[in-house]
């Protein structure tokens, strides 16, 4: 008789002992008994064993049990150790809160992981050597004075630091063109774009020659703008020179200039000249500058072949000065 068969017979006998056997089990027992009469004795022994257990004397619980239980309960009641309704409700609330928290954690964790994976997939391949990343969400609304005041010591060391504002009634078209040009000029990794309700901003920190290429490529948008203004953040970093109706050549000239003193001087001259509706910065500028002992020949924009040659963004070259130009495109008020 194998083990399984023995267990089956045991369970059959147990069902018979407990009067739980079905008709089929009883028939099965009769069949087994015909082949093995000993099984009848076994069943009888089991029944007698059960009767012995059934008949074991009942011990009485200690007589004082009820009183002791009552006194324990009363003591707990007096000491406030009795789990009443309030505690039950508090416990249920706590449990509910814990369940909510657990569910939230179970949902947020995969979401967080998913977001991280998506970010890892979607983010740019590399981050360029952006010198300045503004944490201000409203760059477009930033007051110029605030901007100047917030200029860091690093900014003050920049040869050129300016804000070029295009006011146009074709803001979207101009913004798209600037964005495309930034991309075409391989300046994407030098640029921190930002958008607000009324302006699109490109904060570019790049070598002067790259800024030059960019401005030259942007010449086409000048006619689309009602006003183009350049604010030069001066050396002290707390005020700016505003050049209204600035020309692209003027921007390039300032961006290429290494000397901050000269930048300030040139900016002042351009501001004055443009104010007097002089479209070209005067020839006499040179003589004036020579009077103060500076070689002030402005470097006019020269056509250069730029862009497209760099397929991969390059970090700024070691030792080469970096200039900062913030381009803002705003809706024209006119």
């Amino acid at each position, binding site marked *: 008789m194998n083990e399984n068969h023995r267990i089956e017979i045991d369970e059959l006998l147990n069902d018979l002992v407990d009067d739980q056997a079905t008709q089929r089990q009883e028939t099965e027992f009769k069949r087994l008994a015909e082949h093995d009469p000993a099984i009848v004795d076994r069943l009888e022994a089991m029944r007698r064993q059960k009767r012995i257990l059934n008949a*074991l004397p009942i011990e009485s619980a200690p007589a004082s049990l009820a009183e002791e239980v009552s006194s324990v309960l009363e003591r707990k009641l007096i000491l406030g150790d009795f789990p009443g309704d309030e505690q039950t409700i508090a416990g249920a609330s706590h449990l509910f809160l814990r369940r909510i928290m657990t569910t939230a954690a179970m949902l947020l964790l995969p979401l967080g992981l998913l977001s991280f994976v998506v970010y890892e997939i979607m983010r740019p391949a590399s981050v360029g050597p952006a010198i300045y990343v503004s944490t201000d969400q409203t760059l477009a609304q930033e007051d110029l004075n605030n901007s100047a005041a917030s200029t860091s010591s690093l900014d003050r060391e920049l040869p050129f630091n300016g804000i070029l504002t295009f006011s146009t009634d074709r803001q979207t078209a101009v913004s798209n063109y600037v964005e495309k040009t930034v991309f075409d000029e391989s300046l994407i990794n030098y640029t921190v774009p930002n958008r607000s309700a009324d302006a699109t901003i490109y904060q570019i920190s790049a070598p002067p020659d790259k800024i030059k290429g960019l401005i030259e490529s942007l010449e086409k948008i000048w006619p689309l703008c009602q006003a183009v203004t350049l604010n030069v953040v001066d050396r002290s970093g707390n005020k700016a020179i505003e050049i209204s109706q600035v020309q692209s050549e003027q921007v390039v000239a300032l961006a290429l200039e290494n000397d901050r003193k000269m930048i300030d001087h040139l900016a002042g001259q351009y501001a004055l000249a443009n104010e007097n509706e002089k479209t070209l910065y005067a020839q006499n500028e040179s003589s004036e500058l020579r009077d103060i002992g500076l070689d002030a020949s402005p470097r006019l924009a020269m056509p250069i072949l730029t862009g497209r040659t760099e397929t991969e963004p390059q970090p700024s070259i070691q030792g080469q000065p970096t200039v900062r130009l913030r381009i803002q495109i705003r809706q024209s008020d006119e």
Partner: protein
Amino acid sequence: MTNLSRHKDNISLDDATLVRQCQNGDLEAMSCLIVKYQDRIYNTILKICQNYDDAAELTQDTFVKVLENINSFRSNSSFYTWLFRVAVNHTLNYCKRRFKLSPLSLDAEIGQGEGARGKIAEVLASPDGPDPAVVAQQKELTKIVINLIGQLQQEYRVVLVLRDIEQMTYAEIAEVLQIETGTVKSRLSRARAKLRELLETVLT
């Protein structure tokens, strides 16, 4: 009329009524429930833990626990099985903690009960032997049998006590232990077989 006799009259009330009265803060109903079940709970615990003092303490703890939490009792199960569930779980936890599962020395008991051994052998061997119910009342024999129950593994011992001593149905045991009825049957079968083996060992 004494308190005790009043309690005994009230015991005729069904459990649901007594529980409802307890939930309303009726202390007398609490006493009624205790008197109604104290002996059965005490005996069950005693057979599992095999120690009189521990059984008394555990019985008291069981009633305290049950009555403390009587407001959380819902009538979707019977009070009887709930009470036994608390008692059995409390006893098993206690026994695990205190390592008091080892019963008295079986050899010592056997040595003292030669006459009882003969009686057991006689009862089990022959259908025409003495009435088991009568034999079971003999003190020495009782000790031996209880000791042998104590030799069983905990899970088998509990099922055997609930079925053959407390005379619960399979379904009630399943509810008390929160296991399947099939598991109850297989454990009971093994418990009885094991007890039979132990008895045979003692008798030979």
